[in-house]
């Protein structure tokens, strides 16, 4: 990760520090808010820990100041709820195939190409495919956006090959149509 200027480095460090300190407060709020234990030593411990983590890993959280980050985050929220519902469907689907006496499975490996290129979009799509009904990502080729997917039966394979609902949704979220 190469920073263009000192300003960007400072920006990423400040954002990381705030996020880490907030995380610490959330995890150890029972120390901070109980009246008898309220003292500066506990809080300064948290600040020191957040500073150490910031110095080591500030490149990781704010990797790039891409355009329209806020819009992408907003578009992500409905996608996450849709994804949650898909996970529930996936589990019922697999549980049905496990419990059914004849085990209606017909595994196959499918390939398809997408328009996605950025790391975040590819990771999101790969994780979503693994979490949704009867499909697991095997390989991803980032240069051409090509996916190899192992599908448990014909129906989940068609959902990716023919309908392409998930690809369209991820492309919409990351604006890479």
């Amino acid at each position, binding site marked *: 990760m190469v920073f263009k200027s000192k300003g960007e480095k400072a920006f990423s460090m400040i954002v990381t520090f705030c996020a880490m300190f907030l995380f610490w407060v*959330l*995890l150890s*709020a*029972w120390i901070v808010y109980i009246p008898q234990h309220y003292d500066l030593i506990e809080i300064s411990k948290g600040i020191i820990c957040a500073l150490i983590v910031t110095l080591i890993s500030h490149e990781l959280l704010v990797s790039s100041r891409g355009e329209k980050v806020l819009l992408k985050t907003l578009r992500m929220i409905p996608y996450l709820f849709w994804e949650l519902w898909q*996970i*529930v469907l*996936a*589990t019922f*689907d*697999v*549980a049905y*195939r*496990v*419990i059914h006496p004849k*085990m209606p*499975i*017909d*595994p*196959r*490996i499918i390939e398809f190409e997408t328009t996605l290129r950025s790391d975040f979009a590819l990771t999101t799509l*790969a*994780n979503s495919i*693994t*979490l949704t009904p*009867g499909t*697991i*990502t*095997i*390989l991803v080729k980032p240069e051409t956006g090509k996916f*190899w997917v*192992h599908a*448990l039966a014909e129906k989940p394979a068609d959902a990716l090959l023919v309908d392409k609902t998930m690809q369209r949704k991820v492309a919409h979220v990351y604006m890479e149509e």
Partner: protein
Amino acid sequence: MQGIDIIATVFMAGGAFFMITGAAGLLRFPDFYTRLHATGKCDTLGEVLIIVGCMIYQGWSFITIKLIFLMLFIFIANPVGTHAIMKAAYVSGLKPWKKGEARR
């Protein structure tokens, strides 16, 4: 038994059901790839349902926030782990099972 206990019990029982289904799939499915489907899918929802049951049972407190973080990390880590195992098997040349073959 209060109403909230019953709801928490329903969630935890659902989680336990999915975990057991995953284990059954691990035993029943014919090859490595399909077994990963059973464990990877059923475990994610099973664990999350058990955590939601814990959240409802505990009531709203700071522990709820920790449990929400736990759920988030399960949602991120579980597919990544499943994919990593799958990729390792595929790259090392394990042939997937086709319909009609004998189970391995």
